[in-house]
């Protein structure tokens, strides 16, 4: 689905969401009547310092003045790979965007990520993976690391990698692999109204507590993470 199709299906009563050179910002009225802040990255745009600072500004302004949930639409490249971005401290700009989203979510502005295209690496960490619930749309193609790059570093052939990917979701790109990890909570249907699916999610939002490790265990994608985290937590609590 294109961004316009997605926005039309999410907000049939209209919206004020603009795509300015790949930076999505605006707001819309939910069918239930409330308002929702919308930000994101479109057109497979790389997320650099200039884009990140605009997105965090939109969220902070909305924390000051607005209310309601926050939707983060994602069709991005990875972080912008450039000398200028790193020189200026891209890690701080991406972390800042994630921190603002996490803070909002913890303080009454529940966040939902909608991954409808590509995303990777630092861009995914600063957007979709910084939300409480990350939803995928069919056709989304997240890739923490693409297979050709992996082949280069691991010195394995693409065929060998593809063969290994059949037995484990742990390294290969793709929405279903991230869903098994617990990173993507659910995949929506593009054949029915996105507004219906959004309203259903908002009516039944999971608690703000991060359960992605438990989800990854339930779905068989991450056999050890949840148990290891829990064991360390227990041991550390005993030091009190």
């Amino acid at each position, binding site marked *: 689905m294109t961004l316009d199709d997605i926005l039309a299906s999410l907000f049939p009563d209209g919206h004020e969401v603009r795509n300015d050179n790949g930076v999505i910002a605006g707001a819309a009225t939910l069918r239930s009547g409330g308002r929702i802040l919308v930000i994101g990255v479109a057109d497979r745009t790389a997320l650099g310092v200039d884009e990140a600072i605009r997105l965090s500004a939109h969220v902070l302004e909305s924390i000051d003045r607005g209310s309601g949930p926050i939707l983060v639409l994602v069709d991005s490249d990875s972080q912008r790979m450039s000398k200028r971005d*790193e*020189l*200026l401290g891209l890690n*701080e700009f991406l972390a800042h965007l994630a921190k603002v989203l996490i803070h909002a979510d913890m303080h009454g502005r529940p966040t939902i990520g909608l991954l409808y295209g590509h995303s990777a690496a630092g861009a995914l*960490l600063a957007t979709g993976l*910084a939300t409480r619930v990350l939803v995928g749309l069919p056709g989304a193609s997240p890739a923490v690391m693409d297979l050709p790059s992996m082949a280069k570093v691991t010195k394995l052939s693409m065929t060998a990698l593809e063969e*290994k990917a059949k037995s484990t979701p742990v390294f290969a790109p793709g929405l279903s692999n991230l869903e098994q990890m617990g990173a993507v909570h659910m995949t929506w249907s593009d054949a029915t109204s996105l507004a219906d699916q959004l309203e259903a999610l908002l009516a039944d939002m999971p608690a703000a507590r991060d359960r992605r*490790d438990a989800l990854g265990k339930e779905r068989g994608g991450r056999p050890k993470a949840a148990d290891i985290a829990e064991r360390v937590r227990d041991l550390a609590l005993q030091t009190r």
Partner: protein
Amino acid sequence: MTAPLPHIAPAERARSTSFNEASARTRLDLLLDAGSLVEFIGPEQREVSPHLEIFGLPEQFDDGIVVGHGRLGGAPVFVAAQEGRFMGGAFGEVHGAKLLGLLRAAREIGSIPVLILLDTGGVRLQEANAGELAIAEIMRAVMEARSAGVKVIGLIGGRSGCYGGGGLIAGCCSALAVSEAGRIAVSGPEVIETNRGVEEFDSRDRALVWRTMGGKHRRLLGAADVFADDTVQDFREAALELIGLIGPFGLDRLRAEQGRLADRLRRFGACQDAVDIWTVEGVAHAETVPELPADQFIALASRIGRTSRDAR
């Protein structure tokens, strides 16, 4: 004759040990009060990565990270130290989960600071999805812990630097101490060169790497509050100093960070090189900064460098 106080680290050894060259365990042993380190799920438990076997790669019994608790200046702290010599300190499923559990406990307790000795290339390629998600969970856990009053301090000076998602975790910490070797970035030099060409970034130009991503630049930019010389004792003193400085976290910090970063873009957005930024900052003979010995650099940074205090 008085016996040395048991809670004092053997400062002599810590002063003569390079942080950069030490292993994760040696760093912690010498950073904390002598003999106070207690590890959680240590190597004797053999909790190895369940994924490296698929690639026929050797495992490590601690999956490349030490987590535990100890004392610093007599007070309790939680610690995590990545081993940059095992798979570049990269985040895998088990590695990340150990840090996650530590941060969750710290949040529940609320008063014990967390020191994270970051030494990482980012996501472990062979378990990329699990590693990426572990980093996302850790970022969330750091912010939840900070919101509950926990001071989370990053100490960066290892051989693998602090790259990829490690750079984002560093950006979430309450404060950072960094040595010259502590390169902090998202995309590493080779990644930029591979994707954008050698004209964009020549990864073999070591001087370029150091002045673009290294600890001196990060200190002058205000990304790190303390510059440490490359000894474990210096990092110990930096950690003690930062624990004393960090105030409570709240929305005002994020507003201040927005202002701090927007101001950085306005002032330096057109600069082509770190030397240009340092010159705009008022550093005389900015081109000599990379050669300055640590004590002279620290004096310069305290005079001119920015800090991110109360704005991160």
